[in-house]
């Protein structure tokens, strides 16, 4: 008995596949933007925020960074309804991604903030800027510029991690692959195709983030010259 590959088989359900790709993009678009926003807030809270907030943020960061994303997702989707908080699968997936990326990016951005020279802050203070203005205009831009590559990799990692959202029936790309192989029993082919699509998405996302980085901060060399 031998197996004949049919690499066109996964294309039997183009609508499912396209929807899967779109939902994956939607997840990372919302999760990415909100996650980085949470990360910036967390980094602010840990470095400049009120004293009582700092241990809370670091507990959040440690807790999320040391537990698997899958368990965070299950806890939100299956666990929270147990205490009366009912949310849909899409909301649960986005929430889990935001919480997860928020913790990682908080730690990354904090490292960038730590690298901003003290003199910059003092210069800001001598211009009578408020602490908030200093954070917003003096500390944050160079901090983000410095850690942008690390932050980009983390966003890509979270995008790839979103494949497990298929387990709570979010109709993203991994779900589409599951659905298709459930219909035509071409498991290897449909997983291979979806893996290839993930690879393309990862490469595309990395390029996009590099473009955004260039647009936000300019080319590093050009910036130094001015």
């Amino acid at each position, binding site marked *: 008995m031998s197996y004949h590959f049919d690499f066109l088989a996964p294309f039997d359900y183009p609508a499912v596949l396209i929807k899967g790709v779109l939902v994956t993009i939607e997840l990372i678009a919302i999760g990415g933007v909100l996650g980085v926003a949470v990360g910036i807030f967390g980094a602010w809270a840990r470095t400049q925020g009120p004293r009582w907030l700092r241990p809370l943020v670091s507990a959040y960061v440690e807790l999320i960074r*040391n537990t*698997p994303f899958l368990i965070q997702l299950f806890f939100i989707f299956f*666990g929270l309804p*147990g205490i009366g908080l009912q949310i849909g699968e899409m909301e649960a997936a986005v929430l889990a991604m935001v919480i997860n990326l928020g913790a990682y990016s908080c730690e990354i951005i904090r490292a960038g903030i730590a690298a901003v020279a003290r003199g910059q802050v003092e210069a800001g203070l001598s211009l009578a800027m408020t602490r908030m203005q200093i954070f917003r205009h003096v500390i944050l831009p160079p901090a983000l510029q410095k850690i942008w590559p690390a932050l980009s990799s983390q966003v890509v990692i979270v995008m*790839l991690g979103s*494949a497990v959202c298929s387990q709570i029936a979010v109709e993203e790309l991994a779900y589409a692959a599951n659905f298709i*192989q459930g219909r035509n029993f071409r*498991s290897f082919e449909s*997983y291979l195709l979806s893996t290839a699509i993930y690879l393309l998405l990862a490469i595309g996302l990395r390029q996009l983030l590099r473009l955004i980085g260039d647009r936000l901060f300019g080319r590093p060399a050009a910036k130094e010259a001015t």
Partner: protein
Amino acid sequence: MISFSVWDIVRNLLLALRWTVLLSLASFALGGLLGLIILFMRTSKQAWLRRLTKMYIELFQGTPLLMQLFLAFFGLALFGLEVPAWLAAALALTCWSSAYLAEIWRGCVDAVPRGQWEASSCLAMSYMQQMRHVILPQALRIAIPPTVGFSVQIVKGTAVTSIIGFVELSKAGTMITNATFQPFTVYALVALMYFALCWPLSKYSQSLERKYNAANRH
């Protein structure tokens, strides 16, 4: 209806925890071994070897671990091999972690000053001798903290193997939830157990980094 005490849940989760630990250890050891081989190829003088391993690393870092697990699980079955879930899980996790470890270690090898390569080649050392006696001992020092840090990723990665049916901590959590109808308690306990495994590793990695970095502090 049977009722379950918290102790019943904890006991059964702890029984499953050993499979998470075992799979993590196996993947780390085998992934480290494979990663070392890939590291040698990645830093070799042969351009095609470097390109090949670069592609390998891109491939495993650019695709979800879940998909790699599915491909190992269903792909090997196509060749007529009977693949149990634990084998597919160990195989996929090994390849996945080898790609990450090789890339981490390459960064450490690159961090060794170029003069070290030049000096050792002046002494007519072969590539293997250079690596063995000059480069790796120096790279090792900076490699340890990020390697320990990555072991946390491996432990968390094992959670995904529950999806192809390997019964470790996460899968046990799901099964117990289905029996007890207490998802909040069960998943909180599961998360706590992962935390108990990962947090000491994270802290250890951070303290190692502080220790080895002491020379670079002002």
